[in-house]
């Protein structure tokens, strides 16, 4: 079995079939190395620089696959025989940020790569998520500044009343999405990634149908990166006008006087920032007892004080919205609330609009997972820590990976991309396991919130379980020169660490440019840098980064001496 596998990897076998060049591929690329590849045809018999590399990498794959040979053969016998030769080394289903990151890295590693997209390149992040929302938040940030008379006066500025043009704001978001989309498309085309248009369905091992036609593509390895869609709880009727999801809200077709936001996670919070800056009043509906349940409690408390209380926002916590009816027949949007615990009817709200921000559901329907005996869990594709897909019996499905929102491990664009890169590393022979605790997250409110690693309760629980002490250090933006110069002293940075060995367990920041500041901490976690070492790193003065500098310096370690030998992780 193992032998036959290795044969199929061999580039020699690929000389047998040759297929004409896809027409859309010949879109003008008149220069550079990729040109060679392009005219090689899909089989790529030619010995380009990249195909040599590919050979090399296949060899490595062969070696490394020995580690899992038992499972591989078992799965193969259960699922029929795979194709003997492949159209691609790597086929990615879904051209979102995760698929894009994987594709770029795959090409760098010399894999012949194709990406299947049934909708638009860029996926949720670029078209209906992070990217357009940042455009709206850029507007809301400026509106806030211009509307804050007190703040402007303190700076000695005089500005007459700020106003906005809704369509102009909406266009800005839309233009940004198109620009990033074309950048993304071009970046893949430029290095020779084939973009296959159509809905990808897995037919069997290493075999994918693209679109409804008989266009069947084979690949040695397949990555599922189909992402997610807004999750709408049952009972809620989305009409796209008055009851909307983030997909609609980002088009900013209206700015309602009063909008209810169901869910106070980072999506809801960001939209509350946008809507209140544009003049709406907001009501949060949160099923848990606390707003912003995902955040570190202390950060959440401060966020509530800074981002909720002074704004035109109220909230209902501990309630479910069981029924939401869009505005029609002259009636407003009606929201029925029940107590989350007792399930008894609690309240009815009537608002001008409702935004459903209750999280996101994996987009894995009709993906053909039945064909390979994979059962999703609440829609998520089950994977191990190497993103390898597990079948219904818990066995590994060979050559099939799933990254990003579709596996639900960490529903963030950059996490998907990092997972994709780790998969490419694995199929090219390096066993890279992604450390999810080093992946930062950010919420782009004004001021921003960012976090990496554990929250304080999580860290304390872990400390209790594993028997280590947990300490917390904090610094305020009020003590930072640059923040004060900007008159933005509101903010807190919090470090959760082990005083015994200086390990950083988590960092949470609320304050000016928190989303940019977090990376010093996330890199430290990723690289295993300890506080006793990073505290001697120098920061330019005066910058906001000194908030973290001070944070690290303020940590009290049991033994101040830096351990010369790296501590094993």
């Amino acid at each position, binding site marked *: 079995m193992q032998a036959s596998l290795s044969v199929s990897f061999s580039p020699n076998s690929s000389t047998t079939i040759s297929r004409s060049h896809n027409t859309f591929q010949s879109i003008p690329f008149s220069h550079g190395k990729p040109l060679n590849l392009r005219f090689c045809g899909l089989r790529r018999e030619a010995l380009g620089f990249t195909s040599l590399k590919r050979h090399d990498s296949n060899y490595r794959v062969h070696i490394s696959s020995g580690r899992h040979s038992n499972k591989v053969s078992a799965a193969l016998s259960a699922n029929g025989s795979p194709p003997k030769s492949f159209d691609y080394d790597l086929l990615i289903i879904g051209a979102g940020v995760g698929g894009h990151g994987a594709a770029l890295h795959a090409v760098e590693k010399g894999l012949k790569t194709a990406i299947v997209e049934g909708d638009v390149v860029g996926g949720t992040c670029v078209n209906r998520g992070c990217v357009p929302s940042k455009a709206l938040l850029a507007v809301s940030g400026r509106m806030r500044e211009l509307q804050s*008379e007190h703040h402007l006066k303190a700076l000695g500025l*005089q500005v*007459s*009343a700020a106003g906005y043009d809704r369509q102009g704001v909406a266009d800005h978001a839309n233009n940004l999405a198109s620009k990033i989309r074309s950048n993304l498309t071009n970046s893949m085309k430029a290095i020779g990634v084939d973009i296959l248009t159509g809905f990808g369905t897995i037919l069997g091992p290493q075999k994918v149908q693209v679109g409804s036609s008989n266009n069947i593509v084979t690949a040695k390895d397949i990555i599922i990166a189909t992402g997610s869609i807004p999750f709408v709880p049952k009972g809620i009727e989305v009409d796209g006008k008055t009851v909307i999801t983030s997909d609609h809200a980002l088009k900013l077709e209206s700015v309602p*006087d*009063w909008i209810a936001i169901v869910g106070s996670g980072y999506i809801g919070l960001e939209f509350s920032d946008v809507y209140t800056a544009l003049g709406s*009043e*907001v*009501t949060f509906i949160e099923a848990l007892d606390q707003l912003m349940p995902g955040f570190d409690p*202390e950060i959440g*408390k*401060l966020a509530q*004080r800074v981002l909720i*209380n002074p704004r*035109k*926002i*109220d909230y209902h916590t501990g309630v479910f919205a069981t029924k939401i009816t869009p505005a029609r027949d002259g*009636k*407003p949007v*009606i929201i029925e609330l029940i107590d989350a615990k007792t399930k008894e009817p609690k309240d*009815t*709200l*009537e608002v*001008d609009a409702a935004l459903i921000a209750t999280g996101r559901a994996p987009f894995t329907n009709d993906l053909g997972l039945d064909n390979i005996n994979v059962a999703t869990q609440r829609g998520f594709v089950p994977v191990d820590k190497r993103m390898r897909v597990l079948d219904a019996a818990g066995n590994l499905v060979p050559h099939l990976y799933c990254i990003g929102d579709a596996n639900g491990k960490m529903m963030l664009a950059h996490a998907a991309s990092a997972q994709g890169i780790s998969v490419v590393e694995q199929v090219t022979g390096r066993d890279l396991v992604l450390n999810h605790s080093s992946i930062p997250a950010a919420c782009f409110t004004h001021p921003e919130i960012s976090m990496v690693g554990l929250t304080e309760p999580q860290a304390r629980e872990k400390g209790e379980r594993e028997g280590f002490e947990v300490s*917390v*250090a*904090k610094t*305020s933006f*009020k*003590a930072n020169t640059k923040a004060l110069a900007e008159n933005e002293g*509101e903010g*807190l940075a919090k470090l959760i660490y082990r005083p015994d060995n200086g390990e950083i367990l988590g960092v949470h920041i609320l304050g000016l440019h928190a989303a940019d500041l977090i990376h010093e901490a996330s890199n430290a976690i990723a690289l295993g840098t300890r506080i006793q070492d990073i505290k001697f790193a120098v920061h330019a003065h005066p910058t906001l980064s000194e908030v973290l500098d001070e944070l690290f310096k*303020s940590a*009290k370690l049991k033994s101040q001496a830096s351990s010369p030998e790296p501590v094993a992780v």
Partner: protein
Amino acid sequence: MAHLLNTSFVPSSSSLCRKSTLQPAFHISGNKSRTSQVQAKIREILMPALSSTMTEGKIVSWVKSEGDKLSKGESVVVVESDKADMDVETFYDGYLAAIMVDEGGVAAVGSAIAFLAETEDEMAEAKSKANSSSSSSPVAATAESTSSPPPDPQEKIVGRASFAPVAKASVTSGSVVASSTHPASEGGRRIVASPYAKKLAKELKVELGRVTGSGPMGRIVAKDVEAASAAASDVAVVGSASATGVGNAATVPGKNAGIELGSVVPFTTMQGAVSRNMVESLAVPTFRVGYTITTDALDALYKKIKLKGVTMTSLLAKATALALAKHPVVNSSCRDGKSFTYNSSINVAVAVAIDGGLITPIDVYSLSRKWKELVDKARAKQLQPHEYNTGTFTLSNLGMFGVDRFDAILPPGTGAIMAVGASQPTVVASKDGRIGMKNQMQVNVTADHRVIYGADLASFLRTLAKIIEDPKDLTF
């Protein structure tokens, strides 16, 4: 630790204080004598020392309100020091009886900022304690404690009329009470108020159940609460600190302190708003209709009730409101150039020379009382644009200066403004051929012709004249 220090309040996280040695910041000063320590049922909450350099602290916000039950460990107040904001939590169960330093106020470290009662029964006691010792917060610096000039009851209402910040008397007469038609209000049993309205209601201590909503489908919006607040707030303050010598100041501008001749002074936000409004008004096609009204009966009424603090402007406002109730179109406005906006309530804005405020009188007596309060309020804080933008009809009176007629610029967003001149003895010929002396005043209405036509104004003015000439309804 805090317990050992015998303190009722501790900062929620001591780590913030890492830079300074945490001082025993909180003391109970309720009972200093050693023996009665245990009986300290009413405790003072003191401004904590959050850092070694802190001498005073600012109250960022009270997490709890007066009357709230507190349990051990709960955050009560957020205090800002020179370094950070910190939640301060209670170490005792009890009730927050009285807040002595309001949000935004500053208190020296160690001074009392609130009283904590152990039981509900003791709350009243704690409150009176708070009142008697209100001077114990030495740095309670808030805008209220300004040195207002002595009250001048005669001049208190009208002041100098200008089109600037418009203070508003909203008169709701029977026929225009906006019923709570909100579909989900279940016949008024449920209150539908926007988030900001709720926030304001809490802040201004307005009971939402008594507020009539003017928002979409009868929803209570912020301006309704503001209007209600001005009306509902108690009149106790009025007697002492009523409106000040606004009129005097206006008549002798040369004596105005602070004006440096030859200098260019940028507009304040308020003046900027006025300037913008005035320029904006040029986009509205206006026209004017005048009317001469005999005021003998009104003057007689005024003489009768003036001792009760009723002023001419408030009488006129009430009369105008009654007339508007019969002519809703004159109370309408044109917001988008395409439609009539029929306002659900009648808000008679009155142009005054000082920053305005909102009042909603119940009758003409309270209208006048509110008026004084309004002036106080206006002096205490700068008004937001929406506070002087929401009148539906504006009254501008320059009669007290002897002006007999003038014309007013229509404030954007409203349908009409009425310029009222002085009431003067005039020789008139009556229909039966006799000549006599009557007090007459000229009014001149400027209106938006997109929604209000000549005949509308004419009939409105005739109604107004009837009301003023037979003012028996005004005192109800």
